[in-house]
C-alpha cells in the first residue's frame, strides 16, 4: 500500500506493507538515512523524529498508522538557507557529539524539549533525555549544548 505523509514540509510517498515501520519508511522508502536504528526494544531513541510536532520513536510506529501526518526528521532541522539551526549549532559548539550515531535522535528530542519548555534546568534536561542513549559523550556536552541552545549560561555546569 502506498503511504503518503508530509516529511520535512513536503508530501512524500513510498510503498509499504502493514509491518513497515516509520523508521524503515524514512530510511528505505525515502532514503532519509539520518534517522538511525540502534535497538529493537524501543529504548535507545536513535530513531526519534517528530510526528505532528511530538517526539516519537520511529522504530515503534507503523508507517500506515501515521499516514497523512506531518513528520520532521533530522534532515529537516537546518535553517532554510542550509545553515545549522540553533540546536544543531549548539551541539557543534559544545562538542555534543562524537560518533554521531545517537545525534539525530538527540537533536530531535532536544528540539521537542525546548518546544515544550524553553528554559529547562539541567535536571529537567537530563530527565527529558533519558530515553535517548549515547555511548560516547557521557551526556555532559549534550546537556551543555541543550542548555546553551536554550540561552542558558552553560558555564554553570561543573567546571572543566
Amino acid at each position, binding site marked *: 500500500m502506498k503511504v503518503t505523509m508530509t516529511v520535512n514540509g513536503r508530501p512524500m510517498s513510498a510503498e509499504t506493507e502493514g*509491518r513497515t515501520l516509520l523508521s524503515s519508511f524514512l530510511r528505505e522508502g525515502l532514503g532519509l538515512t539520518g534517522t538511525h536504528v540502534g535497538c529493537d526494544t524501543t529504548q535507545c531513541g536513535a530513531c526519534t523524529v517528530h510526528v505532528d510536532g511530538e517526539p516519537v520513536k520511529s522504530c*515503534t510506529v*507503523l508507517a500506515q498508522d501515521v499516514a497523512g501526518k506531518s513528520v520532521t526528521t533530522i534532515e529537516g532541522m537546518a535553517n532554510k538557507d542550509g545553515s545549522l539551526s540553533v540546536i544543531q549549532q549548539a551541539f557543534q559548539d559544545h562538542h555534543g557529539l562524537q560518533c554521531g550515531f545517537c545525534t539525530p535522535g538527540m537533536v530531535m528530542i532536544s528540539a521537542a524539549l525546548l518546544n515544550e519548555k524553553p528554559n529547562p534546568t539541567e535536571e529537567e534536561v537530563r530527565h527529558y533525555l533519558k530515553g535517548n542513549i549515547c555511548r560516547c559523550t557521557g551526556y555532559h556536552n549534550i546537556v551543555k549544548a541543550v542548555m546553551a541552545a536554550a540561552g542558558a549560561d552553560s558555564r554553570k555546569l561543573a567546571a572543566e
Partner: protein
Amino acid sequence: MHNFDLVKPSSVAEAVAALGSEGAQALSGGQTLLPSMKQRLAAPERLVSLTDIAEMKGVCRGEEGLVVGAATPHGVVAREAKAHYPALAWLAGEIGDPSVRARGTIGGSLANNDPAACYPAAALASGATIVTDRREIAAGDFFQGLFTTALEEGEIVTSVRFPLPERAAYMKFAQPASRFALVGVFVAQFADGVRVAVTGAGEDGVFRWTEAEGALSADFRPEAVEGLSLSAEGLLGDLHGTPAYRAHLVKVLTKRAVAAA
C-alpha cells in the same frame, strides 16, 4: 516482524467489528505490542489501530470522577489530569520517556497488565472502573495475574473512570535498565479509607497491601506502616532484586507516598 494488515476504524463499533476476524488484535500506542512483534513473540494477522477513534481520547472531569479515554497517550494524561488528579498525572509523566508517552496509552497499559507497569497501581488504588465496549469492570476484578485481564476475546477498553481521592501519591523505584517499576506504590486516601496498590513486585502482578491500608486508614502518617512488614512470599525475584528486597522497597515507598500525598 511477521506481516499483517492494518485497519484504521474511526469508531468503537467499527473497531469491535474488525476485531471479530480471526487473528485480529487491537493496536493502541504500539509501545508494547510492536516491540514484542519485532521479537516475533506475537504474530497477529490483522492489527486494528485505535489511534483514530476520537471517542476513545481525552481526559474529562465527570460526576463520578475523572474519565480518561483508553486511547489517550500518557503525555496527554500527564498534562490534562494535573488539575484534577495530580498523582495520576505525575504517574503518567514518569512512564518511559517523552517519546513513549507521546504514543503509549492508558488502555494499552491496562489491557497489557505488565507486572511492572505503573497504571495498574493507579487503577487499583483508586478503585477505578474499566469501561469496555460491552461492560464496566471494577479494577479489582480486571487484573487477573501476569499479562492477564478480565477482557474477553475482541473486547476493547474504551475509557477508565477514576474516583477522585482526597489525597494520593505514587512512588516509583525504577528498574535500572528498563526504567519500568522495580516497585511502584500508589497510595490513595478516600473518605471511606485508604487504598494501597503495589506494582512491580507481585508474582501475580499488581496487588493491594491490605495490612497497610488498615493501618493508614486509622492513621495516615508514614509512621503508621513502620511496624508492618510485607512477606516476601509471592513476590518477584530477578537479577534486579530479590523478593526480600522488593518487600522492603514496598514499605519504603509506601511511607514515602504517604509523606508526599
